[in-house]
């Protein structure tokens, strides 16, 4: 009997130490918290397309149907599971939800956040909880300018790139312009966007006149008075980083008053309305996609795969939030697998994945992503702008110009505002 007991103990100990046991542990799913707006004005143009992209890309990765080097199943062989959270409700709510994701749902990492306000609030909490967090969309450059993080990353470029490139594009196509005005949302995203654009314009056009800067509340919805002010300003160009329902409302209210026919619109996040409001976008409006996404995406294998699969699933083309979410997952997958390989094939810790993602370079549907600034935690990419042109009832872009990543992003260790004020020195 004692022999039998000893044998059982030995077998149990051997099983516990065997590679089979290690494999079973490693094959435990990787749980990702995905956060994006699923309600409110930002849901339709941002949150839902991003959520859709996350579900699609994760499903394809779990099936091993992504192009190489993303073709291993899940993350390093472990199935990916998601906990999807609505980003609406404000920063305080989001901080609570983030803690829930980490402490109650026990997620392995978090990918999310559209709003710059959310990102500013979440970054220090992610650091406190030591949870790998990748911001997929929010644009304010302040995140990595005002602090250093070990666990926080952003695989999409900042709004600095959007606005510097917009000013460069104007320099290229409207070198004789004399004045500009702006309408931006009154919080981190809108203020930073306007600040970077205004400073860049003053560099490229030293004699330029700033007619007016309108800063309505986020989700205000009613813009007739602002439109009157902008019409009265008679500026050559009107800059706006509006997005979501605010951008849609602005275009609907501006269209019958001819605002963007009288002044050229520069819509840095305008790509999201291309497929919805063709009648309200006059030809010649300058449209940005917050990077080389959508109509500006490169002709690479990842873009072909992503567009084909996205259109087959959702019957609409992916817009830039979908691209940003896809590349956020792809970047983390590569880092996870690199860390896993360095860890002898065992499940990597958050610290190991963060070390692998730091300063990494990878390619996605939007092209090459370099984690080059913010001490290797902030991505830079090339970007592009073009002019809208309605063809067959659909908005297309013409006169597209591309700007290399290093030309439209500050170098490592330099704040965006200082870089612009210093004349864009690299």
């Amino acid at each position, binding site marked *: 009997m004692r022999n039998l007991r000893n044998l059982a103990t030995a077998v149990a100990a051997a099983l516990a130490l065997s590679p089979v046991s290690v494999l079973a542990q490693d094959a435990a799913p990787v749980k990702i918290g995905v956060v994006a707006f699923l*309600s409110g*004005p930002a*849901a*339709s143009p941002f949150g*839902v397309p991003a959520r859709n992209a996350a579900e699609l890309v994760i499903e394809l990765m779990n099936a091993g149907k992504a192009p190489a080097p993303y073709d291993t199943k899940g993350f390093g062989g472990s199935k990916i599971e998601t906990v999807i959270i609505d980003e609406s409700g404000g920063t305080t709510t989001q901080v609570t939800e983030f803690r829930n994701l980490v402490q109650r749902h026990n997620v392995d990492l978090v990918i999310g956040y559209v709003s710059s306000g959310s990102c500013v609030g979440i970054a220090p909490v992610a650091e406190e909880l030591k949870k790998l967090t990748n911001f997929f969309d929010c644009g304010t450059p302040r995140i990595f300018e005002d602090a250093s993080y070990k666990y926080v990353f952003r695989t999409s470029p900042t709004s600095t790139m959007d606005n510097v490139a917009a000013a460069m594009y104007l320099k290229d196509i409207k070198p004789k312009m004399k004045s500009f005005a702006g309408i931006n949302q009154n919080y981190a995203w809108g203020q930073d966007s306007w600040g970077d654009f205004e400073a860049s314009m003053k560099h490229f056009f030293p004699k330029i006149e700033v007619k*007016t800067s309108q800063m309505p509340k986020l989700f205000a919805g009613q813009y007739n*008075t602002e439109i009157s002010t902008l019409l*009265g300003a008679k500026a050559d160009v009107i800059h706006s980083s509006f997005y979501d*329902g605010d951008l849609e409302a602005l275009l609907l*209210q501006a269209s019958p008053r001819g605002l963007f026919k009288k002044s050229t619109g520069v819509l840095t996040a305008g790509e999201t309305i291309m497929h919805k409001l063709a009648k309200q976008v006059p030809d010649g409006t300058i449209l940005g996609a917050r990077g080389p996404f959508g109509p500006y995406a490169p002709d690479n294998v990842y873009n072909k795969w992503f567009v084909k699969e996205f259109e087959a699933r959702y019957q609409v083309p992916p817009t830039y939030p979908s691209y940003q979410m896809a590349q956020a997952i792809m970047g983390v997958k590569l880092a996870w697998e690199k860390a896993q390989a360095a860890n002898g094939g065992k499940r990597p810790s958050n610290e190991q994945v963060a070390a692998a993602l730091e300063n990494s370079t990878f390619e996605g549907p939007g092209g090459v992503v370099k984690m080059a600034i913010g001490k290797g935690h902030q991505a830079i990419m090339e970007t592009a702008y073009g002019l809208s042109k309605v063809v067959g009832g659909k908005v297309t872009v013409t006169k597209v110009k591309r700007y290399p990543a290093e030309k439209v992003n500050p170098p490592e260790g330099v704040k965006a505002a200082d870089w612009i004020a210093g004349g864009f020195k690299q």
Partner: protein
Amino acid sequence: MDQILTVIVDGIFYSAWLFVAAVGLTLIYGVMKIVNLTHGSFYALGAYAGASFTGAWIAAGYPPMLSYAVLLGSAIIITLVFAPLIERGILRFMYAKDEVVILLITYALFLILEDVIKLIWGVDPYFVSEPYGLLGSFDVGEMTYPTYNLILVGIAIVSGGGLTLLLQGTRIGKLLRTVIHDPEVSRAMGINVDRFYLVTFTFGSLLAAIGGAYTAPTVSVVPGLGVEVIVLSFAVVVIGGLGSLPGAALGALIVGLVRSATIHYVPSLELFVIYFVMAMVLAFRPRGLFSLAEPRKI
């Protein structure tokens, strides 16, 4: 001079929109003593119904000029579906409770209705821009305005004037004022107070739904539409005095004109100015500009 004219015109248009959005809130408070947060939900429901029905109407090829009637019809239908249900099904059991409790109940209903809207319409935006451009535009000084904006001014005048006439010049108005003054005595005198509450809640909610329906062509109709409206409406009725029709009108006009002037002359203060006005009014007249001394009941 042109700019002052523009400030006034912009202010009036915004005031009209605000008044239409807020007048139902003050009516319901005046009669029922309920700070009704579902008001924002009815605004959103009106916008969704207006966008859906009018979009379908135009897509079916029916005369576009009748889309304005469809907007009104949409608001009426959606209100008749939800308002009596809420008032008879929930609120009538709460009238004896404290005002704060009823406020919390309407807040809960507001959150529920937000989800109901998502269940019915999803999270994709609805656009019905055709009615906005259909009537052409007109010029004031150097500015061009869509003629559609005058519709909201018209609705504001008709709803404000109509309610005043109803309250002051009709038998029903007299009975309603009796209910406002003392529901218990009114009940003792044989007035069907419950029916007045039902009609008032439905009519007040209808005004919100009309505001939403006629705003739909100018915005992207998305979940959360009612949140901003309830905050602004509340500011307007607090400035004017809760329950006061002239107060709501004056409150909307003050907010509209001050906001317009700020946007034109000091745009960086736009976010702050409405609530600054509210704070100033409350500092000197804590019950609002048109609040009346309340008789003490023993």
